[in-house]
Every structure is written in structure tokens, then in C-alpha cells.
């Protein structure tokens, strides 16, 4: 409750603690409150620290593919994609075109599942319980397809050095096309239920406005940055892994408030459906995995690769000393950039708006803590 020395100044110290429905994980915010308003925020991290970078230094290069889907478990495939691309760039391995396309299909399906999870959780924070049921209904469809393709519902072991671990048959292609049709028809439900919902608009319009230069100074990326009007999407700015062959727009918001971030993510889901559709039409034949050395030992030097995850710029940076274990592996977590602007953004905000802003940043806390 309060620090007794603050009785004169009406300031209450409150913990929006590690176990709280709106922190989606184990983030702790130490709030200094004045009545309903938040004067000071001090995020405390580390409750989800799982030593990914330390583990990378004790295992061979390819063993880290087991960790990549567990860093950002809501959208794990881009992490594997980035790590694979970095290794292939280091070892100069040519990835067969079919593997590139399959990687893109899996990543985009994972992005849709992650955005659906976010929409449900965000509206649950704002107090609406119905949308999460619809979102999870759709998400189960996407997760079923991913489970069939990759073998697991959440931590997908699909990306590996030189390509992907499994091919997809004709039936999966039919399922994916059915999913695309069904998902496109579901957007009307979200339009009526959420986007045009007056209460939702009143709760999010003009709340948590992030200016473009502030977002840039703090290194915010992904839908948070695009919500503020900067169309920065690594899939278009620095295309990787065959993304330059697909035509899709990058949605951006105007004001940078919670509503714009919501619209950007909903529009991104549509674009992901387009990408999957294009990828299915031009799905090349051939092998799904290139010849790879048993023990990957990239020549000494530093390698970096960046990928557009569901939450922003996922960058893997590795230093190799020529042996088969990485000397140093750094994982750039997009949520860390997005969360670091919270203290400056939310000073003087009402608590309810702080919850809305926190939800709109789409944080996965164990990804920040790594």
C-alpha cells in the first residue's frame, strides 16, 4: 500500500505485480499513484529470465533451435527463422526455394495466431470477455494447421539449419486455403464486435499516444512503431528469406494511440493472409532441406540477421570463434524496446489507461527477460 512517509503528499506506492491478469506474464510495475493517476512507473523485470543466451554458449549451434520457439512462445517461428538465416549466411548454405516458401507460410500463420492471441488478451484487459472466445476459436484453426505442419501446438520445432523439418502435403494446402477463406469471413465479426464498438473506441482513442520520434529514440519497433505512422517493416525495408517476392502493404496508423495499434495489427492479419495465399499459389517443388554439415562450425567473426517478428524487429547477433559452439549469442527482443518507453509515456495517465496502453504494446515478458 503506501509508503508512510508519503502521507502528506497523497502518493500511494502500489505493485502491479508479477501475478496480475493484465501483465500477461511476470512483469512487475511499481506504481506511484496519486488517486487514480499514475505519477511514476518503475518496471521490474527478471521474473521470466530463463538464461537463453547462457544456454546458447554451452550447446552446439544447431541445438539452439530448441530454444528459439520458447523465447517468444506466442510467435516463435520468426525467432527460428532469424537464427536459421543467420547460420545459413555464416555457413553459406543455399536454402531450397520450397523451404523458403514453407518458412514464410509457417511464420505468417504464426503471426496471425499471435495477433489473435493479442486481440483476445487486449480486449480482456479492457473488460470485454466475448472477443477472446472468438479469437481463440480462430486461433485454434491456425494452431491446428501449424501443429499438423510442425508437430507441436505452441513451441513449433519447424525451423532448422538448411530448411524446414517437414514437408506439407496436398491436404494441408487445402486446409490452409480453407483457413484463409474462413478467416477473411471472420473479420466482419471483429468489425461489428470490436472495431465499431463505442466503448472500445472511447477506451482506446487518444490513449497512450506514442510520438514517432519518441518511439524511434527508445527503439520501439513493429506494430507499436507502425501505429505511430512510420511504415517500418523489415519484410519490406530489408527483405529476407524470399519475402521480396511477395506483394503486400505495410499498414500504418496516424495518431499512434491504442486504437491505431489495434487497427495496424488487424490489417496485418489480412496482409499475412495475402502472403500465405501468394505463397501457396507459387509453392515450388523440390527438397525442403539443403545438405548441411553435421556439426555447424561457422568461420570466426560476427554475424547478424534481422527478422520481422509479430512484435517487431527480432535480431540475432552471434560471435563465432570457429568452434561448434557460439562464443556469444545476443537476441534482440522487440518487446524490450516497446516496454522501455512505458515509464515516460504513462506519467500522469489514469490507471485504466495505463492498463490499456500496457495491453496495446503486446508484451511477452519471458522474451524481454530471455
Amino acid at each position, binding site marked *: 500500500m503506501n509508503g508512510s512517509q508519503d502521507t502528506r503528499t497523497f502518493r500511494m506506492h502500489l505493485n502491479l505485480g508479477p501475478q496480475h491478469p493484465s501483465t500477461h506474464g511476470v512483469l512487475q510495475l511499481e506504481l506511484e499513484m496519486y488517486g487514480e493517476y499514475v505519477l511514476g512507473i518503475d518496471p521490474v523485470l527478471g521474473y521470466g529470465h530463463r538464461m537463453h543466451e547462457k544456454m546458447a554458449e554451452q550447446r552446439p549451434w544447431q541445438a539452439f533451435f530448441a530454444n528459439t520457439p520458447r523465447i517468444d512462445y506466442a510467435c516463435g517461428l520468426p525467432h527460428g527463422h532469424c537464427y536459421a538465416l543467420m547460420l545459413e549466411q555464416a555457413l553459406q548454405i543455399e536454402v531450397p526455394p520450397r523451404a523458403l516458401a514453407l518458412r514464410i507460410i509457417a511464420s505468417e500463420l504464426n503471426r496471425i495466431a499471435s495477433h489473435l492471441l493479442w486481440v483476445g488478451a487486449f480486449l480482456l484487459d479492457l473488460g470485454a470477455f466475448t472477443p477472446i472466445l472468438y479469437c481463440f476459436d480462430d486461433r485454434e484453426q491456425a494452431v491446428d494447421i501449424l501443429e499438423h505442419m510442425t508437430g507441436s501446438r505452441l513451441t513449433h520445432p519447424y525451423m532448422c539449419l538448411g530448411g524446414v523439418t517437414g514437408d506439407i502435403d496436398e491436404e494441408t494446402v487445402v486446409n490452409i486455403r480453407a483457413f484463409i477463406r474462413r478467416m477473411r469471413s471472420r473479420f466482419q465479426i471483429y468489425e461489428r464486435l470490436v472495431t465499431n464498438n463505442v466503448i472500445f473506441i472511447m477506451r482506446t482513442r487518444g490513449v497512450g499516444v506514442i510520438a514517432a520520434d519518441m518511439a524511434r529514440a527508445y527503439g520501439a*519497433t513493429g506494430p507499436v512503431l507502425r501505429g505511430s505512422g512510420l511504415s517500418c517493416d523489415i519484410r519490406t525495408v530489408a527483405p529476407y528469406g524470399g519475402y521480396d517476392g511477395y506483394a503486400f502493404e505495410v499498414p500504418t496508423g496516424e495518431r499512434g494511440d491504442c486504437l491505431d495499434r489495434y487497427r495496424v495489427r488487424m490489417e496485418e492479419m489480412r496482409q499475412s493472409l495475402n502472403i500465405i495465399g501468394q505463397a501457396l499459389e507459387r509453392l515450388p517443388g523440390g527438397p525442403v532441406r539443403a545438405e548441411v554439415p553435421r556439426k555447424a562450425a561457422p568461420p*570466426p*567473426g560476427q554475424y547478424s540477421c534481422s527478422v520481422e517478428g509479430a512484435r517487431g524487429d527480432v535480431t540475432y547477433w552471434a560471435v563465432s570463434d570457429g568452434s561448434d559452439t557460439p562464443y556469444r549469442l545476443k537476441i*534482440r527482443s522487440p518487446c524490450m*524496446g516497446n516496454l*522501455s518507453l512505458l515509464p515516460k509515456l504513462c506519467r500522469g495517465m489514469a490507471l485504466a489507461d495505463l492498463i490499456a496502453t500496457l495491453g496495446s504494446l503486446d508484451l511477452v515478458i519471458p522474451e524481454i*527477460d530471455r
Partner: protein
Amino acid sequence: MPDTTLMALKAAGARVRAEGSLIEAGVDTAILKRCALVLRDAGMYPVFMTAVHTEAGFMLCYQFALWDSPCRVLVSTPAKNDGRAVSLTPLFPGLQWHEREARDMFGIIFENHPDLRPLLLCDEDRDLQPLRKDPARLKTPEQLTRAEHTDPDEQAP
């Protein structure tokens, strides 16, 4: 766009090597602040900051990127030998937590950092510094850099 930043970096005295869209800049601690200013004026956002534990002490590695072009700049600078370093948080507020994490993992003390508290580790482990290497497996910086050293002044494509 990247060419102008390349020129400015070279003017600031960095040993620059460009490879595709990745620019590696070796910087001494003295001119780190000036290089960072150059990058900030070029409108780059801080991607990450971390350290590598080598025999010659800690190598601080920053990466900056532009939001509208594939150019990425990798700035690497040695920390002072007693594990202290200059904090870039005044220039890039986004690096504040990265520097706190580097303090947690390596024990590097950043001068004029707003609040250098442990970020990820609990209070009893504040000085655990887990990412430090065993002395046996330490490598010298030369062993970690690319063998075929292309001519540093080669122009970025």
C-alpha cells in the same frame, strides 16, 4: 543514405568496414560519444547493446538501424580495462535497459547511467555476472574477427 553516415563515421575516426547492408565500425572509447551522435543525427534507432568477454577485457557491441533502409551499423568498442564504460543512455534512452542488463551479465559499470540497478537478476545474485567466460575458453579479439580482413576503406556498395 548509408553513404553519408559512412562518411561521417570515418570522419569521426572509426575504422569502418562495409559488407552489404551491414557496416562494422571499430571505435575507440574516446570517440564513442561522437560516433553515437553521428548515428543519432542520421535518425538511427538503437537495436541492441551487449558485451563480449574476451581476453583483452570486454568488447561493447552496439547495433543501430534505420527504420526506412536496410542499413545496420555495428559499433564495437573496447570497455576500459577495469570494466567501466561510457553510458550512451543520454543519447539513446532505449539503451538504458540494455546497459543495465550488461551490468547484470558482465559486471560492466556505466558512468552517468541514470539508475544502474540489476535488471534481470534477483538481489542476491546482483554480482553473479553469469555470462562471463571461463578463463580456459576465453579467446582473444583477433580469434573472433573474420579471417580475410578486407580493405577497411573499401566503399559500401
